[in-house]
């Protein structure tokens, strides 16, 4: 099955307006607007320090923006200012799930316990149900036999696939990926990307921060190139990654495709 691109009249799932964020005197985000349609895969690319990870973390309130707002389709917009508390941002997290660069699995829990922690403790679903679902998901990513292992007994690629399953088990409407393959050994990257590709083909909505340009070109419906806290260029991957209009995008893409 290949990924069906959402059309222009597909409703928006997530909308972020005017996101601003400073760390000390350094302004990391200078008014970022973003919209993600249902079923859309959006790839955020850009050099280190461009603010792409910060944007992603603002979408689920891990980072509290200094200004701007984030809203999900039906819910009210969460408007941020300097006094916004973590508690207010918690609303956003019920709609999305995140996959981290360093997996952030819970080391004191088995693979299965990692996955059912959210569904059982937060969503108050039946434990037996959660276990059945978790087992199915693990089977899908080829890790059924690892359900009772502890994270440290797994390779990086396996840990990241567990990280993805942990996110899926929450049944979120949006998946956020923060450089999901950047901490992996090169030979393990493929396993993880394959899983993400399958999810895209299934119609999951996702925002993906990545350095894998070839992968972004294959799965993304829209690519957003950021540099120094602003969106420099956005559009169809074939345009942004193959024939970028902006000089900064051109330089970035060229550098990544020709590292030497």
């Amino acid at each position, binding site marked *: 099955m290949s990924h069906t691109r959402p059309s222009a009249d597909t409703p928006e799932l997530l909308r972020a307006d005017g996101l601003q964020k400073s760390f000390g005197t350094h302004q990391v985000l200078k008014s970022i607007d973003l919209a993600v349609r249902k079923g859309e895969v959006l790839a955020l690319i850009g050099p280190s320090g461009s603010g792409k990870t910060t944007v992603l973390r603002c979408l*689920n*309130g*891990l980072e509290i923006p200094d200004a701007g707002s984030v809203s999900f389709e039906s819910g009210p917009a969460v408007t941020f200012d300097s006094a916004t508390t*973590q*508690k207010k941002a*918690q609303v956003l*997290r*019920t709609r*999305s*799930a*995140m996959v*981290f660069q*360093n997996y*952030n*699995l*819970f*080391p*004191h*829990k088995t693979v299965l316990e990692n996955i059912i*922690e*959210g569904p059982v*403790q*937060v*969503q108050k679903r039946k434990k037996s149900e959660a276990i059945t679902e978790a087992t199915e998901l693990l089977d899908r990513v080829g890790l059924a036999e690892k359900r009772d292992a*502890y*994270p*440290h*007994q797994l390779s990086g690629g396996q840990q990241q696939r567990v990280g993805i399953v*942990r*996110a899926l088990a*929450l049944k979120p409407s949006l998946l956020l990926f923060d450089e999901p393959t950047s901490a992996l050994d090169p030979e393990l990257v493929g396993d993880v990307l394959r899983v993400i590709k399958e999810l895209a083909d299934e119609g999951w909505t996702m925002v993906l921060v990545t350095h894998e340009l070839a992968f972004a070109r294959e799965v993304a419906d829209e690519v957003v190139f950021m540099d120094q806290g602003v969106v420099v260029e956005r559009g169809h991957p074939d345009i942004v990654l193959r024939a970028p209009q902006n000089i900064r995008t051109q330089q970035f893409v060229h550098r990544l495709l020709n590292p030497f």
Partner: protein
Amino acid sequence: MNIDWNLFLESFWPIVRGGLLGTIPLALISFVLGLAIALLMALMRLSTNRVVSFIARAYISVIRGTPLLVQLFVIFYGLPSIGFTIDPWPSAIIAFSLNVGGYAAEVIRAAILSVPKGQWEAGYTIGMSRTTTLRRLILPQAARVAVPPLSNTFISLVKDTSLASVILVTELFRKAQEIAAFSQEFMLIYTEAALVYWVICLVLSTGQSRLEGRLDRYVAH
């Protein structure tokens, strides 16, 4: 030197009894209460609220900056003069709990801080509140780090309970003092008391290693 083995054997059970009925319950109760105080103080110390954090800081500073014996005297001999008379046992438990609370607070705070920030974030992103993340994810991981230093605190506490003898609590050392005074065999009886303390601490150390082993099961070796 002539060792009076008869006296040694005769006094053995009374001393051990003092340990079982005095020292061990005193240490256990004080440690549990002390840990509760310590956890509270550690969390207050980590609070972003300056007043709350200051209160915890002041508490820890006072407890660690004054001798345990003096704390014990203030509670047992001092408080009655301002109208609060507390019996020996509760006095000892209050003093030891407060003391453990001060020392263990720093251990627990450091242990909480040793858990990577990503663990908090992972908790938040699966929808957990700060409190649930702390309880379900952070504290279990912090426990692993805290067990060795807290075991030291506990072993010190077991020995420190001998100070309760000066406020008339009948524990191991108080018992030994009575027997020594009666028999005038100071060297024999106090050595015997020391041996019993040592054996208690040996047992506790074994328990510590087993607990550490259990908590280490999820860590790469």
